[in-house]
């Protein structure tokens, strides 16, 4: 029975070891950062940073660097830029985010086009967009772990202040919290975290690991600490199970080539959310919904 669930060789394979270890670290980081992202209503910002990371990934591919550095550089740059143009006014922030995102996607199109012009490997655009957990090279692992710890550490140190500024920015300001600096630090941590998950499930889909586990956890768990713990658990479970299924799927139809890891991870994460959503007696929206039409990316 066990042999049918876990293909022989799964635990003996080097790339799988790396994938499982790095995947767990990244899933925990994404889930914890995600709890704050959802509470602060910054899903769109998180997603935009991930998409902008695509531009960095394709740029890095063009000049021959490891894609992670591209994800990281463009994500952090975009976070700084979004901070600069959008923090003062609530209204119009998601529009500003959208315009930055649109310009960055245009650039991504150009980079990918030039990249395929100069080399014949057409599979690169697919890897950048949808990720590939099995091709993490061991030389990037230390960088991945250090960045993950950096993002996680930033968020944990700022946790109390972040919650206060999310729930009541005025109260936080009155207590002498530097609201803007805290928001900027969080946006940086968010950028690092989406760059990391872009490595395993692709830039376009890293939103899944960021938002899915966190949104599910906020529905089922009471209090931010428990929610973060539950989210981390869901994230790791989805990543590991997704990796396992992707490994198994090399023997599945239609081509015997393996299904993408990102598909499994996204399906598991979304499935978990739907179960918590449809659960009878489930709580309604966790945080008091602010006027949705006013700002969907409010850095409240």
């Amino acid at each position: 029975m066990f042999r049918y669930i876990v293909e022989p060789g799964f635990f003996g394979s080097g790339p799988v070891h790396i994938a499982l270890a790095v995947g767990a670290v990244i899933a925990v980081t994404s889930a914890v950062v995600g709890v704050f992202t959802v509470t602060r209503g910054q899903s769109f910002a998180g997603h935009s940073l991930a998409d902008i990371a695509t531009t960095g990934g394709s740029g890095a591919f063009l000049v021959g660097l490891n894609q992670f550095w591209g994800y990281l550089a463009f994500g952090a740059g975009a976070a700084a830029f979004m901070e600069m143009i959008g923090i003062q006014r609530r209204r119009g922030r998601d529009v500003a985010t959208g315009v930055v995102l649109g310009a960055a996607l245009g650039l991504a199109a150009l980079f990918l086009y030039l990249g395929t012009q100069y080399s014949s490997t057409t599979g690169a655009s697919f890897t950048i967009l949808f990720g590939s957990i099995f091709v993490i090279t061991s030389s990037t692992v230390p960088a991945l772990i250090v960045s993950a710890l950096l993002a996680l550490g930033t968020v944990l140190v700022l946790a109390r202040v972040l919650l206060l500024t999310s729930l009541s920015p005025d109260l936080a300001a009155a207590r002498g919290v530097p609201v803007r600096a805290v928001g900027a630090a969080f946006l940086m941590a968010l950028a690092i975290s989406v760059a990391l998950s872009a490595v395993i499930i692709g830039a376009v889909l890293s939103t899944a690991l960021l938002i899915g586990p966190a949104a599910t956890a906020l529905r089922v768990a009471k209090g931010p600490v428990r929610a973060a713990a539950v989210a981390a658990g869901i994230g790791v479970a989805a990543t590991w199970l997704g990796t396992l299924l992707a490994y198994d799927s090399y023997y599945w139809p239609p081509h015997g080539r393996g299904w993408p890891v990102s598909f499994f991870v996204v399906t598991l994460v979304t499935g978990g959310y739907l179960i918590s959503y449809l659960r009878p007696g489930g709580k309604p929206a966790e945080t008091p919904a602010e006027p949705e039409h006013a700002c969907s990316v409010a850095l409240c």
Partner: protein
Amino acid sequence: MFSSFMLNTWIAGTAVAVIAGVTGFFAVLRGATFAAHAIPNGAFAGAAGATLLGLNPFVGLAVFSVAGALGIAGLSRRARSDVATALTFVMMLGVGALFVSWSTQYAQEAYSLLFGEVFGVSADQVRPIVVLGAVSVAAIVVMFRPLLLSSALPEVAEARGVPPRRMELAFLLVMALATSMTVPVVGALLMFSLMIGPAAAARSLTARPGLAMTLSVVIALVTVWIAIAAAYQSNWPLGFFVGVIGAAFFLAGKAWSALTDQARSKRGANRKILSS
């Protein structure tokens, strides 16, 4: 550049710009930027699936975009709308990744669906864009007043008997159908730039809704026309030009409104000094 080979491109580009200008105006007004990004992007999965099954990609696009709009509207009832949008979106994209990996010619296919294939547009591709574009623009014009009211003042709209949920769903559906049809031509990732940049620029130029919508269409048209010409000359992807020109218009609009605000406040200050 204006040879018969390019004729369909110009027609399709013009239709796309009109659709983007009209729907983008309301997307910006309603703060539905994320949904505007998510639906055409997610619909790309439908096109990939239809190609895989040997169907017309438009069938897949229509099915997935409507499913996306229903998913966002349905999940938003009991959750924050940005979370609902994000999850609906990643699910559609995840399925898209699966379809693309199944397809044998995957990379090129994915690339052209995501970033567009504007040259060599066939008459078969132009027809659904023009027809559905006309239908959705007509729908928006018919709904114009209630939609405007429910976007700007949802409480007042509700008191007047305009149900906000139904309005939201209607708008999402129109936007979904209109934008997804354009995916094979402009690409999933870039329809969004064309919707948000011109509309946001128009909004910072004028506060009058009718004028702002017209301006948004005009700016979108100029953006697309310049982009087609530039892409034809340079052979670079159209999406690059659309994204960059759209952002440039937005920044120009911002600068203009900052300048006029400054002038207005200075004038106000002068008047205050004179009157005191």
